[in-house]
């Protein structure tokens, strides 16, 4: 029997705003399947987002949803989670929202290791504003604000998250749709700050400026560059040139989680009263 997405979607809120060929819808379906697998209670789940195409996801899923200001989703989510620890809190957003204007909140949420799952749809561009380069736009790529090629180096989001202290970091792609929900399930189950980067595509503002003739070509690129971590272990550095590792890239179950530590702090404060 086909999976019933409808029971998770708010009545009357579709069609979504995403362009044909955009991978955000694939990620949303993956998230919904993950929520279903985990049997998350919709009344007790908050999805938080910032601003941008990916951030519009919060309008569609029928749980508690908070569509905030540009870049601030992780900080809002921190407030929600700390005030209501029993709630499952998930952040969704794009690369620019999360790691440019929201970069400070992102790295500090990683550092705290607060039990929140952050899903980044990385399409390497600011889509909603018409295709300006983001911190993940490849060097040399064209965008509306890099007409002569992007002079900036770009972030490796997974390394950024690991370096900042996140304790679960995974990467998937919009092409590998069946893997997305599995990564998200594992991320939500992890006790700590978990980051799931989904390599995504923006045919409208990135593809057409960077010689991708079709959505299929963009999707095929995601297929070609992705190498599962296990497979990568058997590959040479030369073979891994231009490839991107996918799967669970990092997992640390020893670092204390913020909410649990805060509960201990409250006990200490009460005892000292």
């Amino acid at each position: 029997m086909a999976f019933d997405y409808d029971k998770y979607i708010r009545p009357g809120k579709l069609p979504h705003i995403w362009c044909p060929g955009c991978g955000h819808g694939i990620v949303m379906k993956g998230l919904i399947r993950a929520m279903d697998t985990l049997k998350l209670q919709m009344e007790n789940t908050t999805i938080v987002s910032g601003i941008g195409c990916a951030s519009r996801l919060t309008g569609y899923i029928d749980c508690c949803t908070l569509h905030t200001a540009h870049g601030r989703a992780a900080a809002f989510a921190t407030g929600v989670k700390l005030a209501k620890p029993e709630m499952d809190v998930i952040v969704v957003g794009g690369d620019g929202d999360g790691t440019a204007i929201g970069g400070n909140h992102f790295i500090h949420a990683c550092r705290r290791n607060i039990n929140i799952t952050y899903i980044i749809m990385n399409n390497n561009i600011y889509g909603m504003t018409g295709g300006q380069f983001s911190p993940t736009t490849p060097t040399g790529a064209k965008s509306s604000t890099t007409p002569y090629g992007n002079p900036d180096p770009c972030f490796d989001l997974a390394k950024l998250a690991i370096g900042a202290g996140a304790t679960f970091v995974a990467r998937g792609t919009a092409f590998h749709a069946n893997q997305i929900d599995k990564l998200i399930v594992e991320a939500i189950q992890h006790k700590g700050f978990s980051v799931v980067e989904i390599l995504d595509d923006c045919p409208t503002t990135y593809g057409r400026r960077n010689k991708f003739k079709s959505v299929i070509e963009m999707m095929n690129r995601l297929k070609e560059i992705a190498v599962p971590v296990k497979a990568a272990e058997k590959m040479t550095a030369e073979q891994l040139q231009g490839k991107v590792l996918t799967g669970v890239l990092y997992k640390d179950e020893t670092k204390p989680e913020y909410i649990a530590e805060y509960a201990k702090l409250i006990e200490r404060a009460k005892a000292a009263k």
Partner: protein
Amino acid sequence: MSKKVAFLQGNEAASYGALYAGCNFFAGYPITPSTEVAEVMAAELPKIGGQFIQMEDEIGAMAAILGAALTGAKVLDSTSGPGFSLKQELIGMGCISEIPCVVYNVMRGGPSTGMPTGPSQSDVMCAKWGTHGDHPAICLVPATVQELFEEMVRAFNLSEKYRTPVFVMPDEIIAHMRERVVFPEPGEIPIVPRKAPTVPPAQYKPFDTSFGDVPPLAAFGSGYKFHVTSLNKAEDGFPTTKAELVQAEQERQVRKVEGNADDIIEFEEYQLDDAEVVIVAYGSTSRSARFAVNEARKQGIKAGMFRLKTFWPFPYKQLTALSGRIKAFITPEMNLGMCSGEVERAAQGKVPVKGIFRVDGEPINPDQILAKIKEVK
């Protein structure tokens, strides 16, 4: 039973006022001259099972309190000028999404980093116009340490009652001075809870105006599923660009505060009955003004003071009424005429408004005000 009495710094009294009001969540970022609030909250909140978090920046602190408030928490963020500037975008979100919260902003010298330890009253316009777009503003400007305690309680009550951010803005002098504070007994000052939904979750709309200009707010995690967005939205909470809906929502949000100005505005009339010269003052400046009025009276000059306790909404109505029967207003303030301009709007050209403005980090002293009283009498 005698009441608890303590000798407290303004920032400490503000913190205890917040706790009295039921504040159970604080997020902030260290900044002079308001940091003592964070320090008290860090020590006190965990004892009652509340949460304190020092965020990575001022904006993050504002975001965290808004997120926490949506779960039903009573929230506070404390800051000062530069931090207040940084928070403005999210203050706008607090207004448009109608999220109760209290922002405590100690006014120090500005603009920019300015004079971090010097007093000022130059953020009062930022409280009204700092964030872009039309929105309501409630701003309280206490003048004593006792009042700071009490106004914090009132701020939480107003915030919950009107479902909007409320600012408590002492100048640095009030925030750092030490005075005797008599703690009210629990229950002595009524605590106002936010209006909770009376409809079942399936029928709930977060901006349902059939309940009046202040719609009931459910809490995330209480069984109600709903959407909150920073975009212009319709009654159901979802984004809209429909002209008539956006117009109506924006007008309602301003109306819920401006239309209840009489409930929100508090002021003190000091020696006003026969006053010919009226000083309009607030915060520490009003303490010098009171001294100057007393001196003027000793010298036979009919001076009085209209002391603002609420800066926004501004008491135009009361000041317009006064302007019909006096010779002049005097507006001493530690800025270059922010309150003065509003008094001019209220005076409607009927009487002159004479300012005394200081932005040098020094308080306005009674002699300065007395000299101006003599000049205009």
